[in-house]
């Protein structure tokens, strides 16, 4: 047998292009659409400035409860009739929220998009919000969160977030709230939040074959009966770095793995160094081939996977590493992870590593941004972060142009191994002494965590 030994080089590059973007002001709201000629599926997303950042402190999870309550009947029909009507079109009402926005969306064969957006708007703009239904939804959501928090991860995430951002701030508490905060919501809180944030027009994002889509009709349905304008979205929040590294131990008796959540605060999304910062994150932990995954999984076999990356929203950001490691190797996995972060901060990245990172990130634009759902997601990024139509084309160029000096400088400036908070959720009785012996920092037992 003779396999071919020489690795082939690339063929002629084919041009990358993001679909044509259309922005229009219709019926009192904004429409941002991408033309996907020949596409059989279409996606519409109603984007509202009603993300978790709009929830008052103490009412975490309000948006999540409201999202579920939208489907409990509308001014026109009850919950069952609504479910049957929208599912008969081949879609469910998909809702989601992050720190910056609330989103409700439908995905249907293109000729059904008009009917689907009408039903979407009916639920978002005119939900019944019967107090008894809202209380039941709230209880179900509290139970759902309690179920979720029985998994490893959510508690550690919450402990890390509180330590980085301060639990007296909304952004220092879990994005979706916790079982207790949701259980404590009143039906009236939900109604008030709806009237304050869900009646404003917002933006309708559409991805599909615009030759077969009537944007005027979609906008008329999406923005009917809306009122009120944009509200100031607040400026970037200064988050001081912690002066001392510390370990916070969250007890999970009997756990066969330890869940690691390491992090510190980092720049917000509009920071001018966004691209080199994110590439530094990619080299360190953002890809399968990154330093952390290579060392902790591929060399040591401590884990099924480990990731590290910078994440940012409009007002704040953080660097974070997450993994699940076998209980017996918790301490060495932690020591080596911190070591890899410190090495990257001190020594920067190599040309070989950066070449993979920038080609991967740039290539992902052609590989990933193809379906209507993915294109709609990209348009949402443009809207939420006030970016221009040619953002993705420019992003590709700036990724490919980033050099070792820029990315190493970003690693040096924005990684802070001495300021990390190291949250470990695992079997405290088994791992505590080992964690103390690492000398990475004081070990603090998270109160009431078992």
């Amino acid at each position: 047998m003779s396999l071919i030994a020489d690795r082939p080089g690339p063929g002629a590059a084919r041009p990358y292009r993001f679909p044509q973007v259309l922005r229009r002001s219709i019926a009192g709201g904004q429409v941002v659409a991408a033309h996907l000629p020949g596409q059989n599926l279409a996606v519409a997303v109603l984007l509202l400035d009603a993300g978790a950042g709009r929830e008052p402190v103490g009412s975490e999870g309000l948006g999540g409860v409201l999202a579920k309550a939208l489907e409990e009947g509308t001014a026109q029909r009850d919950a069952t009739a609504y479910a049957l009507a929208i599912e008969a079109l081949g879609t469910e009402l998909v809702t989601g929220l992050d720190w910056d926005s609330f989103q409700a969306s439908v995905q249907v064969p293109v000729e059904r998009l008009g009917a689907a957006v009408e039903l979407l708007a009916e639920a978002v703009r005119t939900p019944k919000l019967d107090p008894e239904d809202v209380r039941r939804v709230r209880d179900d959501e509290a139970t759902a969160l309690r179920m979720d928090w029985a998994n490893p991860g959510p508690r550690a995430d919450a402990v890390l977030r509180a330590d980085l951002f301060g639990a007296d701030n909304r952004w220092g508490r879990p994005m979706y709230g916790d079982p207790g905060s949701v259980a404590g919501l009143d039906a009236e809180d939900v109604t008030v939040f709806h009237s304050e944030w869900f009646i404003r027009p917002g933006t309708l994002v559409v991805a599909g074959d615009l030759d077969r889509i009537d944007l005027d009709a979609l906008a008329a349905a999406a923005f009917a009966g809306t009122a009120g304008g944009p509200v100031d979205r607040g400026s970037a929040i200064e988050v001081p770095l912690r002066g001392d590294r510390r370990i916070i131990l969250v007890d999970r008796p009997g756990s066969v793995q330890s869940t690691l959540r390491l992090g510190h605060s980092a720049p917000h999304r509009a920071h001018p160094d966004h691209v080199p910062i994110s590439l530094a994150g990619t080299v360190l932990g953002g890809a399968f081939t990154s330093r952390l995954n290579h060392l902790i999984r591929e060399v040591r076999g401590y884990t099924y996977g480990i990731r590290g990356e910078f994440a940012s929203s409009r007002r704040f950001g953080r660097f974070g590493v997450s993994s699940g490691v076998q209980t017996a190797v918790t301490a060495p996995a932690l020591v080596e992870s911190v070591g890899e972060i410190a090495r990257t901060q001190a020594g920067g990245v190599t040309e070989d590593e950066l070449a993979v990172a920038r080609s991967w990130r740039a290539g992902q634009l052609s590989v990933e941004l193809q379906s209507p759902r993915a294109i709609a997601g990209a348009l949402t990024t443009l809207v939420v972060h006030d970016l221009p139509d040619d953002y993705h084309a420019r992003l590709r160029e700036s990724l490919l142009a980033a050099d070792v000096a820029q990315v190493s400088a970003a690693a040096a400036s924005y990684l802070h191994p001495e300021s990390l908070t190291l949250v470990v959720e695992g079997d405290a009785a088994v791992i505590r002494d080992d964690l103390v012996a690492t000398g990475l920092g004081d070990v603090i037992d998270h109160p009431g965590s078992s």
Partner: protein
Amino acid sequence: MRRLAGAWPGPCPRAGSDSVGAMPDSGYPWPISTTRLDNGLRVVVSEDRTAPAVAVNLWYDVGSRHEPSGQTGFAHLFEHLMFEGSLHVAKTEHMKLVQGAGGSLNATTNPDRTNYFETVPAEHLELALWLEADRMGGLVPALTQETLDNQRDVVKNERRQRYENVPYGDAWLRLLPLLYPPGHPYHHATIGSMADLNAADLATFQAFHQTYYAPNNAVLTVVGDTTTEEVVALAEKYFGAIPPRSEIPPAPDGRVVPATGVPMAETVVTDVPAPRVYVAHRTYPFGTPGYDVLTVLATVLGSGRGSRLYQRLADGERIAQPDLVGAYGVDLAHGPAPLIATATARPGVSGERLAAGLAEVVDELATVPVTAAELARAKALLATAWWRQMSTVDGRADALGRYATQFGDPATVAERLPAWLSVTAEQITEAATEVLVADDRVTLTYQPEEKP
């Protein structure tokens, strides 16, 4: 057994002449070509110039159903080894080369088969084919004890993370032996047992590759910005010299599982936040008309807020958590595939009451006819789900590989959606009467342990 997270979107041209709301003639309105190389490798190509990307997908007709007793988990562990270097590809280089080309990649193993796939910018097609050929034809010389030991640890951590360290995580591991008798190829789970993984030795894996990773046991599919001529020429160049294997041992025949006539029930008392019940049945093999009926039945039963389970248990009686009711078929083709329905109790509701409610809704599929509205809803949801898979080049490549591997002709992919859309209410009643009988049911119940 997904190794990395990630779902890949892609383009989807207009299907047929008018709408998918009407009955489409085809679920695959793109060209398909199939070429068989002299060594038996089937090369399937589907050209689509919409975006400058290509999906490359290899289906190997080997899965955990081929594993003998004492070697559970080997097919999946082997999948991991395929990323660790081959004759001309150094350890760690495979991932680096694909990601460095801008690509996404992964592989999965299930009871039926193992698939390997990458989507790359179109100019890197040749690289992807070179990498796949090198590990098909040249894995064994690169396989070392060190690599095996490392990936064994990774897989054991995968098992801990996905099955052992999460509430209800072992449900699938418990359901399979209840559904399929010892000796049946679906009796054990793909992830395998810790004991078998610990016992795995290098020679076994070398033999595994030599036995199953042959060109005549694989289908290479390429979808996207390329042509049949280009792909076939490159396939000939890179895979053409890999010799076929004359005898590839089949898995045990699992097509017939006699009805036991005795319900199977298992109750697990453990650290879970609420009672949860799984009801499972053996049905028909994926790809048969019976399984098409089952697919629509499962959607009527358990997809969406308009489904019977949601309407009856989450909304009506309000005994189940709304986000945690559902039903689905597991698309296995080499034996009667499972249908699984599940619900999790609302606070104050016992596991027994929930199990009774779940069983009642399943039983009613045989006695309460499916209405026209229920049927139309299920078909609309299935049509969207179908076109969503077809909207990506990688989704299409995987589907073509499946139909070529399991049914001998990738073009049969076009028949699935029309088959779903032609299912009648009467057929659903008949199927329920035949395969969802209470006397042949598996019920798995999780009960929270009493806390002191």
